[in-house]
């Protein structure tokens, strides 16, 4: 095997120019595949975290914009006690935090949201759901509040110092602010309706995101909540729950049955995928066609050399192995080229300018390009080499 590698490497080195182009082509295909996969994943970025809610029996409860000062304090406990067979809730809450120095808008999340969805941050880290010290993520602001600062707030009579641990990116989508803070629900509610972008110019005040687990702070459900029922809930119980939700008080709106949310979400995701489909098909086709042509050309070019190996004592079958070794070397260089390109894209900040994510899924799909190339570069030479004999090649020459 070592000898085949040596011969493969020798041929690889002696055909530097053509191999450089092959490596560039594979590298490019891999980078495009990462971009494509990132783009597809980004479509699911807001669906996947709460997939278990969207795909279970449940309800998307939303809070009406028409708030008044008299609505009762509603907690998740209230939901759990008054509704039948509630399994879990992913809820967003308002707080009674107050600052005499700065006016802020506040939103707090329960564990379900803190754990499942991290918005895009420009700096720092996401909040911890079991903080020893009160901490918050802040929106970009004109008040020059930065990560690491501590701001002093009050909740009732309690003084609450809060440490800023992270800052949202401009236009970062966050959970639970749709239908509020200037965002409105779409006509058709779907997974996207659970999110919105906080517009600091429009809202004037910075937004503080805190965990609902902080002590000495009052919370109530005033933003959207995803409520998941147990699987064994009956249609009748669901109907009764919806009646309760609609009748809690004027401030609450029954958003939508999760069945509808799921259908609308799938339709929306499918629409998004359809727009990407032509590009996906083009990339896959180009990869396959170029792999076939490159492999066929390379094998044809090598046939004479394989004949020389044959008359010198190689088996005709072994030429396929030499070819495979050469392909493996090409793949190794293409992988290296891709790693370097990824590093350059990340280092230069280009990854922030377009959708470019490195994670196991994107790596897996870009690796498929290598697998496709390798399989083609294994199968095609076998077919070409089998179809001919050294004598035929000698006669042609």
């Amino acid at each position, binding site marked *: 095997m070592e*000898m085949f590698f*040596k*011969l493969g490497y*020798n*041929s690889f080195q*002696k*055909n530097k120019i053509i191999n450089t182009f092959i490596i560039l082509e594979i590298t490019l295909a891999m980078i495009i595949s990462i971009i494509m996969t990132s783009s597809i994943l980004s479509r699911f970025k807001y669906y996947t975290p709460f997939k278990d809610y969207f795909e279970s029996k449940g309800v998307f409860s939303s809070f009406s914009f028409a708030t008044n000062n008299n609505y009762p304090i509603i907690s998740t406990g209230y939901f759990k006690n008054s509704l039948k067979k509630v399994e879990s809730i992913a809820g967003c809450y308002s707080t009674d935090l107050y600052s005499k120095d700065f006016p802020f808008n506040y939103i707090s999340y329960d564990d379900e949201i803190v754990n499942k969805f991290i918005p895009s941050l420009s700096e720092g880290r996401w909040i911890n759901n079991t903080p020893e010290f009160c901490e918050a993520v802040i929106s970009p602001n004109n008040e020059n509040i930065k990560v690491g600062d501590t701001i002093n707030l009050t909740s009732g009579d309690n003084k609450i110092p809060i440490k800023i641990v992270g800052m949202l990116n401009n236009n970062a989508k966050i959970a639970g602010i749709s239908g509020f803070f200037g965002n409105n629900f779409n006509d058709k509610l779907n997974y996207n309706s659970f999110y919105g972008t906080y517009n600091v110019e429009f809202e004037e005040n910075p937004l503080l995101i805190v965990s609902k687990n902080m002590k000495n702070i009052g919370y109530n459900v005033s933003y959207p909540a995803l409520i998941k029922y147990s699987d064994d809930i009956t249609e009748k119980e669901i109907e009764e729950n919806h009646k309760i939700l609609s009748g809690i008080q004027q401030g609450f709106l029954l958003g939508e049955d999760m069945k509808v949310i799921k259908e609308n979400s799938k339709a929306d995701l499918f629409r998004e995928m359809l727009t990407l489909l032509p590009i996906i098909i083009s990339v896959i086709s180009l990869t396959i066609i170029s792999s076939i042509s490159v492999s066929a050309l390379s094998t044809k070019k090598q046939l004479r*050399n394989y*004949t*020389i*190996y*044959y*008359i*010198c*004592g*190689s*088996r*005709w*079958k072994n030429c396929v192995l030499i070819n495979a070794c050469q392909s493996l070397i090409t793949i190794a260089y293409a992988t290296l080229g891709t790693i370097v390109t990824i590093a350059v894209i990340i280092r230069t900040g280009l990854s922030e300018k377009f959708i470019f994510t490195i994670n196991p899924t994107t790596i897996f799909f870009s690796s498929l390009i290598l697998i496709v190339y390798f399989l083609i570069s294994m199968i095609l030479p076998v077919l070409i080499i089998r179809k001919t004999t*050294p*004598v035929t090649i*000698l*006669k042609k*020459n």
Partner: protein
Amino acid sequence: MIQLKNIKKIYNKGKTNEFEALHDVSLKIDDGELIAIIGKSGAGKSTLLHILSCIDSYENGEFFINDTLIKNKSDRELAKIRNKKIGMVMQDFALIEEFTCLENVMIPLNFSKEVKMSSKEKTKKSTEALKKVSMDSMLNKSVNCLSGGQKQRVAIARAIVNEPDVILADEPTGALDTSTAKEIMDVFHELNKQGKTIIIVTHDKEVAAQCNRIIEISDGNIV
């Protein structure tokens, strides 16, 4: 010793364009002979050479190399015979253009399986082979920089590097001018003196005249 008994070779067997290239060819070549196989184009010279070099099969008859019957041999066994017992020299030199002289000569050593040779040993042996054909000063030169005569010398060095008993040459001077052709023939004579059996396929009467025995083939028969 090489012996052929009633060798028959048919191309495209069973097809409409079936063609019998060799008809019951029988031949005996002793060790240390220098033989020319001559004949017109299409007479069956190259077919005979391909059978002798174990790169082509035959339909009927028997073919022995040193009393070993070359029939129904596995791929592996035939490869071993080509590697150890036979050295081939072709009209178009059959060198890998991108390789250096040394790398080309080293090819048969790379496929030798019995003795595990180190890279250093392979280089030494290849250099010695190149020295025998006076090409040791161009070890690391790419063969595409060489003249036709030099390329043929490298091809001969490759043919002898594994010290085979038999050297088969298919029109070895066909692509060379007269003086270079003479030089190449001198190399063959020298190798023959050292005990190698040399079989040269040619249609050049001057080349044939320099051999100890001439075998003429016409329409697939030895005449």
